[in-house]
């Protein structure tokens, strides 16, 4: 039996938990609908476990590069493939899970699909593990054609890898389509995309999370269909022996891979849009600018991937310029609007700094920093120097770690809400503040080593650095140490996140209004509620 809840299309449920929402509420039109099954807790457990394991693999790689594990060098590339694919996939599903949860109070997704998404992901990951750990498949996370078919690994491991991607791709495609269907059940397409804001109308109030998820799901279909075409062409060559065009494959692969990881960030942002207002004590409403920015993402995000092909001289020059322009443009709507939007939300707000809101803020900060690294790298003149150096993992690790911060924050937020605690009564305790400081310190050190390596031309994807690149070995060693600090802090943080679901868990101390929290902001929330 499904739980029955009453839902109103009002400011109150559009911006729940938000001070002032109640007063702004017009007369409610009540309907009854069954709430969608929440799978967020399962996703949290899976994500936390996989994150720790995959991060451990990352540390192993850094130690191999640092010459500390000389006997394990032959494992570098299988580990790199598992780590890369695992993390990218995990990031996507965790962000999807958060976005689905954020939309649960607005739209009704299918329970069957929610369970199917979990099961399909588990099967896909199992196939990936077999391919890499048993078959030692090692073509890297984006399995660039024709490498999977020409490696030293057995053919079956390449096929298992492709099958794993097929299962994951099909599962996620169905999941995305169901999200779109759920949105379509409640909103018309122009409303879901916020087009009425462009006409200057402010009703109906559409939560920004709905706009972001709608845009992301449409683009997601493009990415996943591109992935399907890529896989079909791989199978075509496997079956007929007739090779396909390498340039086409590279375009398709990055249209799939680049777009998918971009969307993971957008989905995590949808969750932040949903939850941050609860701590800022004011709504984060959609408006004309939000609508324009997220609608422009629809096109821009599909064109930015061209920056992966700067070194492919056979790619027509026009597309290279489009790639650079789109990469710059991509940072304007989503990044600038969202980051400034978040800053404006927090500025002079009665902000409640809990583990969730601090993680959201750190996540947005990391996104901004990693984004600058990405924009530098997508500038053609700079890319000539930085292409395939450690600068690339430097920038994407920055915003991917940032993405995980947002996701962990959202899990924590869901935990506290499900434990039915008064969010207004919470703040970051001293213990959590210490963990957060170590987390940031570890991450900064680990990332700095990547950036330094990139700036000093250390190539990426080298299991062992030759003597000419001895500085790369030193950076790797330091990075390994910083990453270990980061991981210990991350595990402690994840324990806090898991514990947040326990009803009796009391986090932070109650403080009188205006008293500074360890993070330094006034915990004025009490005054508002």
């Amino acid at each position, binding site marked *: 039996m499904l739980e029955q809840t009453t839902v109103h*299309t009002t400011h109150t449920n559009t911006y729940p938990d938000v001070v002032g929402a109640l007063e702004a509420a017009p007369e409610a*039109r009540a*309907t009854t*609908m069954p709430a969608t099954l929440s799978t967020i807790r399962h996703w949290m457990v899976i994500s936390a476990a996989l994150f720790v394991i995959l991060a451990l693999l990352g540390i192993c790689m850094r130690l191999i590069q640092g010459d500390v594990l000389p006997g394990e060098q032959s494992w570098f590339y299988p580990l790199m493939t598992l780590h890369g694919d695992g993390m990218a996939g995990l990031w996507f599903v965790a962000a999807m899970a958060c976005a689905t949860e954020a939309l649960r109070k607005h739209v*009704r997704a299918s329970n069957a699909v929610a369970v199917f998404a979990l099961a399909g992901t588990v099967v896909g990951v199992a196939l990936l593990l077999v391919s890499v750990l048993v078959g030692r498949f090692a073509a890297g996370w984006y399995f660039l054609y024709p490498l999977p078919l020409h490696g030293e690994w057995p053919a079956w491991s390449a096929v298992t890898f492709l099958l794993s991607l097929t299962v994951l791709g099909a599962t996620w495609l169905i999941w995305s*389509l169901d999200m*779109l*269907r759920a949105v*379509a*059940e*409640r*909103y*018309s*397409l122009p*409303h*879901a995309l916020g087009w009425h804001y462009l006409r200057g109308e402010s009703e109906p109030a559409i939560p920004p999370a709905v706009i972001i998820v709608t845009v992301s799901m*449409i*683009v997601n*279909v*493009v*990415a996943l*269909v*591109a992935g399907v*075409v890529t896989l079909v*062409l791989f199978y*075509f060559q496997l079956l007929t022996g*007739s*090779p*396909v*065009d390498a*340039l*086409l494959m590279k*375009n*398709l692969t990055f*249209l799939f891979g680049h777009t998918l990881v971009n969307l993971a960030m957008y989905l995590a942002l949808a969750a932040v849009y949903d939850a941050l207002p609860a701590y800022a004590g004011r709504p984060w409403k959609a408006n004309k600018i939000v609508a324009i920015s997220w609608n422009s993402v629809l096109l821009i995000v*599909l*064109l930015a991937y061209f920056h992966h092909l700067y070194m492919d*001289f*056979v*790619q*027509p020059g026009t*597309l290279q310029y*489009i790639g650079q322009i789109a990469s710059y443009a991509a940072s304007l709507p989503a990044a600038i609007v969202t980051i400034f939007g978040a800053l404006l939300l927090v500025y002079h707000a009665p902000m409640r700094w809990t583990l969730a809101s601090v993680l959201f803020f750190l996540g947005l900060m990391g996104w901004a920093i990693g984004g600058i690294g990405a924009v530098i790298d997508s500038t053609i003149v700079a890319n000539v120097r930085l292409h395939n150096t450690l600068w690339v993992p430097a920038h994407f690790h920055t915003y991917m770690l940032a993405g995980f911060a947002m996701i962990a924050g959202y899990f924590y937020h869901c935990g506290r809400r499900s434990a039915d605690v008064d969010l207004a009564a919470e703040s970051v305790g001293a213990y959590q503040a210490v963990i957060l400081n170590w987390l940031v310190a570890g991450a900064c050190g680990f990332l700095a080593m990547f950036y330094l390596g990139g700036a000093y031309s250390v190539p990426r994807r080298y299991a062992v650095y030759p003597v000419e690149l001895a500085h790369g070995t030193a950076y790797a060693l330091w990075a390994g140490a910083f990453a270990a600090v980061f991981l210990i802090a991350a595990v402690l943080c994840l324990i806090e996140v898991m514990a947040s679901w326990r009803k009796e868990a009391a986090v932070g101390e109650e403080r009188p209004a205006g008293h500074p929290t360890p993070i330094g902001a006034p915990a004025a929330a009490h005054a508002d509620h």
Partner: protein
Amino acid sequence: MRTTSGRRVGAACVLALLAAAAGAQADPSVAVSRAEGRLLHRRVPDVPLHLADGRTVPLSSLWQDKPLLVTFFYRNCHGICSPFLAWIRNAVREDDGLGRNYRILALSFGEQDTVADMRSQGEALGIDDPDWLFAIADREALARVIEALEFWYRPDPATGQYDHTALLVAVEDGRVKRALVGGAGFAERFPVMARELRGEFIRSYAVPAQTAWRCFSFDPVTGRVSVDWGLLILQTAWRCFSFDPVTGRVSVDWGLLILGLPTLTAMTVTFGIFRRGPRRR
């Protein structure tokens, strides 16, 4: 009205561009075959050669200061040898690079051929250039070169002739830099090879008829890039238009950019899903 005609003009321009691009489709004859690809970077054995002028020199001495073009023939051939050598002579004259950019060795694989036959072959072709050499080699030495360059030949007892392929190999510093196997398309391909021997960077060689759905074709002779079918599979900013050959009318189907299969699918799916409008408030 103006919008429609404006669209038509736009579409016609796109059509013209695409037609021009299609005209510049890479010539398959400039392609590199698998057999040729296999030879690339192969080391050529250094064996002694007996030249037409009576000298005996190591093969390596011929590629020391400039690249060497090697071809095979036999004096008594009634088939391709003489036309092929004549063709190389003409192509080389046209290119005007002999002696400056490369030297040529025509190596005989005929068992009966002598140094005198080498001289007469040169005379028959009207070739008298110190950088164009005719030579024979001892059987064992010849076998090593022939094996390294995968030159195929077989005596035919019925005619007393040899069945064999035509081969022209460019060797630089003892390694194969480029090879042309079989006679087809030599006229177009030799100039490209000569440019490469001059040190020019040839951006790509097509792989003929082995590639399905490529995105763009690149013609190494003209340096032009043209659009190919793969592009339709891919999302790209290309216009979708239809052309009616009877009326000559060009019309824009979607009016805007077509964004290829994935994007079209996503659009169709999105509109399909949202078609019925909201069912719940």
